[in-house]
Each structure stands twice: as C-alpha cells, then as structure tokens.
C-alpha cells in the first residue's frame, strides 16, 4: 500500500539522528508525516479490521470475526448498489454539465475581461463555490420547497405545476445534480478562464483572417489550450463527488425510495444511525479503494502541472 511505503521512505532519516542535517529533516518533516499517518493510515487499517467483524458501535466489546461476510452482504445489498449507481450518475452528470456550462460562461467573461462591469460581475458569479455546502443545500431547499418556495410559485405563474423537487423520486437526484452544478460551474469556469487568457490574440486574429467559424476556433484553438486545466478540474470534481454529503444531508436525507442515497450517506447511516460499524466499515473500505484509484491518477497530473 502506498501509505505504508511512506514510512519506509523515511527510515534512513530515522536511523541517523546524530547527523545535524538528518536531525533537521526529522524535526521539520516527521511531525507532519506522523500526524497524517495517524489520520489516514491508522483509520484505514482499523477500518479494514472492523470490516471483517460483526460489530455494533454501542457494544464494541462484543464484536465477532466474520471474515468477508460484510463484503458479500454489501455487494448484494440493493441499497448499497443503488448508492453506487447514484454516486456514479451524480458524478458523471454533474461534471458533464459543469464543463459545458462553464465553457460558455468562460467565453462570455473572457470577452469582457477588459470591461470593468464585466469584471465586477465575474467576481460575483463565482460566489457559490466557496459558500458553506449545507447553506447551499438549505438555500435550494428553501427555493424549491413545494409549499413556500419561490420556484414553484414562479412556475405556477406560467401555468406549470412544479413538482415536489426533493420528494418525488424521479426529480430528487436531478435536483441534487442541479444544485451541485450550480455550486461548481463557477470553479470550472475560472479554471477555463485561466487557460483561455493564455491564448495569444494573434491566434484569434489569424483564425478570423482564415475565415474560421466559432466552432473551428473552439475545436482547434481553445480546447487544446484548456485541455489540461479541464482534466485537472474533472479529476478534482470526481474526488469531490465521491465525498458529497452535506447537500444531501440537509435536503433529501437519502430521499424517498432512496432516490438520492449516495455512498457517503449510506456509510454514514450504517455507522452512526444504525451503529453497524462492521458493515459500514466495509462500505468505507470500498469507497477508499475507489478513491485511491482516482487519487493515483490525480496526483500524477497535479505533480506534472505544478512543474
């Protein structure tokens, strides 16, 4: 495991504390490494251990070794499979929409980059992404509330009978995706702007002289320039979506017929509502394995970009 190997990488430094150079390394780096080992490697090993047991959070002393039974149960648990499916739909759906919408938003603000009003509007349009996620959930819980929400009031004004956004199983997941897209499109847009401003204007002028249409420009000039930043954005957003919890926690709480049950939420409920920590830990281990996979790719790209 990558985590375990980290401690062996430090072994030479640990062996020779007498040398002042090495002592400095110890004092500077080791505390942070130990901190992170305690917070990531230890919980991981402990989760694996728990996942092989039938254990209740309220009666930890009476846990019983059951081997891989939790994993077998989990992979045949319709709710868990549903939560994986929902998480996949959420991740793919949100990111696809974010990339497309962000591209158009970025184009608009790029063309206004010298315009004072445009700059002010851009700084306001990026507000959603740093706002506390539970507040984002509640803001939309309020707007989309079937009885007092303004969304359905406005819809009724044009003769549409608005659905119960979070209550209707058909609408719940799309609604959560829409909220997610609302919060994170500005991030993707800023990423793309960072890539787009690096395109020299001579390229645009040359394209214009050649009589290129807008989609030629997008395909042959703009997309190549922002490919790397889009990739980084997508990787980071995949990782974010695997962790998504807050928005669902304050809006649907899993939803009727589990329409918005996500892996994080599933795990949270098993562990802290039903106290089934063995079962929940098995789910946690599976989430971790998935995110280690994504992370390996992510780290490679982030390192390459930083240089």
């Amino acid at each position, binding site marked *: 495991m990558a985590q375990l190997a980290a401690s062996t990488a430090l072994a030479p430094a640990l062996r020779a504390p007498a040398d002042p150079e090495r002592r400095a390394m110890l004092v500077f*780096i080791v505390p942070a490494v130990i901190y992170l080992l305690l*917070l990531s490697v230890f919980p991981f090993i*402990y989760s694996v251990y728990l996942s092989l047991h039938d254990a209740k959070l309220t009666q930890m002393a009476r846990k019983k070794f059951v081997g891989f039974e939790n994993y077998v149960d989990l992979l045949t648990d319709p709710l868990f499979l549903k939560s994986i499916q929902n998480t996949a739909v959420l991740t793919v759906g949100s990111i696809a929409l974010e990339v497309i919408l962000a591209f158009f*938003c970025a184009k608009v603000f790029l063309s206004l980059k010298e315009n004072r009003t445009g700059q002010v509007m851009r700084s306001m349009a990026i507000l959603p992404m740093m706002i506390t996620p539970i507040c984002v959930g509640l803001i939309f819980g309020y707007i989309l509330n079937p009885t007092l929400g303004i969304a359905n009031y406005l819809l009724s004004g044009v003769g549409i009978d608005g659905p119960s956004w979070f209550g209707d199983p058909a609408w719940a997941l799309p609604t959560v995706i829409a909220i997610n897209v609302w919060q994170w499109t500005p991030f993707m847009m800023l990423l793309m702007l960072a890539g787009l401003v690096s395109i020299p204007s001579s390229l645009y002028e040359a394209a214009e002289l050649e009589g290129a249409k807008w989609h030629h420009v997008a395909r042959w000039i703009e997309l190549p320039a922002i490919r790397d930043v889009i990739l980084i954005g997508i990787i980071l957003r995949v990782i974010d979506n695997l962790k998504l919890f807050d928005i669902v926690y304050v809006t649907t709480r899993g939803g009727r017929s589990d329409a918005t049950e996500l892996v994080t939420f599933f795990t949270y409920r098993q562990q802290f509502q039903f106290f089934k920590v063995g079962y929940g830990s098995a789910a946690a281990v599976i989430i971790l394995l998935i995110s280690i996979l994504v992370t390996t790719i992510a780290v490679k790209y982030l390192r390459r970009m930083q240089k």
Partner: protein
Amino acid sequence: MTNQNVGFKLLAAAFITFIFTAPILWMVLSAFKTINDIYAIPPVWIPDFTYLDNFKLLLSENWEFLLNSVIVTLGATALCMIFALPAAFGLVNFRFRGQEFLADWILSTRMMPPIAAAVPIFIVFNTLGMLDTLPALILVYAGFNLPFAVWVSMSFFRNIPKEVIEAARVEGCTWFQTFRLVALPLAKSGIATVATFVFIFAWNELLLSLFLTSREAKTFPVVISSFSTVTKTYWELISAATIIQILPPVIFTLLMQRHIVSGLTMGAVKN
C-alpha cells in the same frame, strides 16, 4: 469589438451572474422577514431590513456555538500551519531518498473521503474521553487540512530562489534559522493565502463535527443543519444563520479571487 457586441455580452454576463447570485440573495432577504412573510404566497419581495428578531432569537440561543466555530476554525488553522510550514519547507529544500514519493503521498491523503476515517476517529476520541470537545475538533480539522497546506505551501517555498537559501546556509544559519528568518518572511503572502483557505475549509465543514460533537462542542454548521427536522423546518432561523455562516466565505471570495483557482487546484493552475 463593436458597442452592440459589448452590450450583448454584458447582457449574457448579467444573466449568468443573476443565476449564480439570486438564490443566495433570496435566502439573505428572508432573514429579515417575519415567519408569516416567509410563508406568504405570493412572496414578500422586499422585507423591512430593520426587522432583526430572527437574528436576535438565533444568537440568543446559539451564540456559544458560533463561538465554538470561531475557536475551532482559528485553532485548527494555527495548528495546521505549525505542522505544515516546516514540512513544506523541508520537502522543498532537503535532499533525501523518497522525497517525491513522500510529497505525493501527502497530497494523496488530501483526497481521502473523511467518512472512511469516521468510525476509527470516533472510537479513538471516545476512548480518550474527548468526544464533544473543541480540542478533538481542532485536532481533526487541522489534520484533514494538513495535506492541502503542505502541498500549496511547497509551491510558495519553491518560488524562493535556491541561491537565497544557500546563501543563508553558507553564512552559517542553521536550517531552523534559514526557515524562520529567510524563508518565512519571503513566503509571507503565500502563507497568508494558504492559512485563509484552511480557515474557510474548516469553517465550512459539517460531517466530522456531526459525529464528533453532540451538545457542548457543536459547531455552527451542525446547529444550522439541526434547524431542519423531519417535522418542522425553522426557515427564519436558517436564513439568519446562513447570512452569518456564509459571510466569511463571501468576503474571502471577493478579496482573494486571484488565488482561488491556484488554491483549489493545489497550485497546479495559476491565474
């Protein structure tokens, strides 16, 4: 660009800005409405901004949780930076085997979903008798932000010319002196940026506080989430609390927008 073209672009920009700000604004307006006005259909568009009862009610019962949030966030930020800065400095300036690997590993821990560590952390703090205490939250929040702080601080330390560090060493500075007297002052603004990010991340956190606290040490986000129950949702309290809760991130976004992209991409993308 022709004037007409600019006009059209501004209109499009205004539309985009409206989409991304109007929902926030709508919640903000409701904080100044009476309960009746919140439930009124058709809606009350402009409230009486002198009506502050929602804030009074909210803070009279929950000010200590807001204080918890402030203490935990500040404490976690400070603790996180104390561990992160020397590590980042060391990872940039020391030469040792496995250096790149160690840095990558630190970054990879950033990606770990907190829920995967939840039960072990819970059990440890339970054993230590530290559940529902502020120090437990500070320790956990600092730890979860450590990878971010190390990695992004590294990019700022890397910007300091190698010659400057070497000169300090040749002059007889110990590594500690080089760090404190040379590197820290030169990376000052970068460090401030990192610390502000950590502050916002800790401020916004819900999940960890949700299971590590129950009564005394609840943070403000946990309190806000408790206003929405299965039977009743207290929108008047939620809207007032939302204003207070989102104020730091909003100010942060407006002031630090130049750094947001590079911060959120771990320094991979520069503005």
